[in-house]
């Protein structure tokens, strides 16, 4: 309970510029080393370059990087810590497995050089479903298998900070879900902060606490993931994400007797979604509701299969071509709803109007189910 402990979580302080012919990266940002930080942005926005800079691979860099108080680079003071001494792990966009080693050899490579060894090798191998592949040559692996090996290898090195560059892009939904769960567990078990690059906001919403959005080498947005997503909803016509309400709510009842889990939105209102075994171990659930999945009624609906009905007040109306984005305030939470301009006219919705939001239990999405 010392001052410093109370004061702040350790940070990754970035203050860097990198210049290429046609591309400049300039980032000044303190990233709290807590949980998983998502990195989101268009292709060629500088995501990989950022990760390479942090890990020490991007040498023509100016500025300084400090990791938990330790200076990794400082071009003014001429400090340049070598990549191997940074204890930063990186899962590359292309897996970069060692072709002269088997799968087992690749994993052992990491284990041998790992200083902590808090993780169980067998456990990680089991969770990444690599057990039957251990004796394989890496050139025999499918794209998805390679990614799993790369991920397992990086985790087994137990770095102080793990950077992940689209580590699951070649995987199917099922494997993605499994591995995201694993990463969350390992994150907690080792208290290992991660930076996670992905083009899938769904994935990020499920695992990240903080979100960094890059555009053309600059920070477009940074902060609490729910806030950032909600801000991105209003990004304008060129939507870079599916508009959605991002939530992180306490579980009130795991099963209401009808296969529905109730989440406490506020003292009065609950949100229901389909129960899943995995929820049992959790107190809190992260979920999102696509703005297009929520509909508006003026009267409380009856005899519908829709289980979620929330009462709220329209806070904001944004017209976007044939679409309308409504921000509806329910209790203390903003919900985002897109409806057709047609419906808006039909229902003649205006600001401060009271409406019912309705959405199905199935519209409350958790990636990890």
């Amino acid at each position, binding site marked *: 309970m010392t001052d410093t402990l109370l004061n702040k979580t350790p940070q990754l302080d970035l203050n860097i510029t990198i210049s290429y012919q046609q591309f400049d990266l300039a980032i000044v940002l303190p990233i709290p080393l807590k949980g998983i930080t998502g990195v989101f942005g268009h292709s060629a926005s500088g995501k990989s370059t950022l990760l390479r800079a942090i890990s*020490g691979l991007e040498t023509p860099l100016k500025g300084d990087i400090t990791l938990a108080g330790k200076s990794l680079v400082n071009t003014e003071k001429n400090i340049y810590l070598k990549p191997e001494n940074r204890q930063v792990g990186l899962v590359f966009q292309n897996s970069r497995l060692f072709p002269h080693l*088997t799968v087992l050899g690749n994993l052992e490579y990491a284990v041998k050089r790992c200083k902590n060894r808090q993780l169980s090798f067998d456990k990680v191998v089991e969770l990444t479903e690599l057990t039957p592949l251990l004796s394989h040559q890496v050139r025999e692996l499918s794209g998805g298998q390679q990614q799993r090996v790369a991920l397992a290898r990086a985790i087994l090195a137990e770095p102080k900070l793990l950077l992940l560059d689209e580590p699951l892009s070649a995987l199917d939904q099922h494997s993605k879900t499994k591995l995201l769960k694993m990463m969350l567990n390992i994150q907690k078990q080792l208290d290992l902060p991660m930076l996670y690059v992905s083009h899938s906001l769904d994935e990020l919403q499920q695992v990240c606490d903080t979100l960094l959005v890059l555009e053309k080498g600059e920070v477009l947005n940074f902060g609490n993931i729910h806030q950032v997503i909600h801000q991105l909803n209003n990004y304008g016509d060129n939507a870079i994400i599916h508009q959605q309400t991002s939530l992180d709510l306490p579980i009130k009842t795991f099963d209401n007797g009808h296969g529905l889990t109730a989440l406490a939105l506020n003292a009065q209102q609950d949100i229901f979604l389909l129960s899943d075994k995995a929820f049992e171990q959790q107190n809190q659930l992260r979920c999102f509701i696509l703005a297009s999945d929520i509909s508006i009624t003026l009267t409380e609906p009856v005899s519908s299969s829709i289980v979620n009905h929330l009462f709220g007040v329209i806070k904001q109306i944004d017209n976007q071509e044939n679409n309308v984005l409504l921000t509806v305030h329910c209790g203390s939470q903003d919900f985002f709803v897109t409806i057709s301009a047609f419906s808006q006219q039909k229902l003649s919705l205006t600001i401060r109007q009271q409406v019912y939001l309705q959405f199905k239990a199935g519209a409350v999405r958790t990636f990890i189910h």
Partner: protein
Amino acid sequence: MINSDLQALITTLEMATLTTIILLIIGTPLAWYLAKMTSRFKVIIEAVVALPLVLPPTVLGFYLLIAFSPEHLPGKLWQQATGQQLAFSFSAIVIGSVLYSLPFVVQPLQKAFEQLGDTLLEAGALLGAGPIDRFFSIVLPLTKASFITAASLGFAHTVGEFGVILMIGGNIPGETRVLSIALFDHVEAFDYARAHLLSICLLLGSMVLLAAIYWLNLPKINKAKGLSSQANRKEGNPDD
């Protein structure tokens, strides 16, 4: 007298083995440095390393003889340091061979290092492997074939070497008289029967040795899928 050939064989093997070891020890860092060097001086260093190739061995031997003689600086320093004369000693022929065979070791290694690229080294570094560790755990296994080429070119070239060794070694039995000189002597002395015999032994011996070396190198071949492979050989777990 067959005895004398045996003695020459032993001297030759000792010399070639020692030379190869020294070549690898010197040549590897040099090749690495050249492969990763970006300075404009690179071409000059490369040219200097390649120079021994251009001089006829006897002429190279002539200059080395001058350098190694106790009257000149390198020979004098050696004599002060070791108390022994450098010219006409076993050390002299090893040093001469090292200089003469250096390009055969450095150049294949350098090209192998250049072709290797950085991606896997980066991966290794981020798993905590330092430069030396990376060299032994990534570079060496992936360029094994080139190391074998370098070592066998260096070894073979040293075994076959003649002009330099004759000049600076002085053909002293048991010390600097090597097989190539013995063979030359047989030809010169019209002892063709023995020359043929020795040549055949040398050829067969080298052939067996080279084949054995390349054999060691075989499992790495044809691991890539695709175009060139008629049938993919399957192996359990050769790397363990």
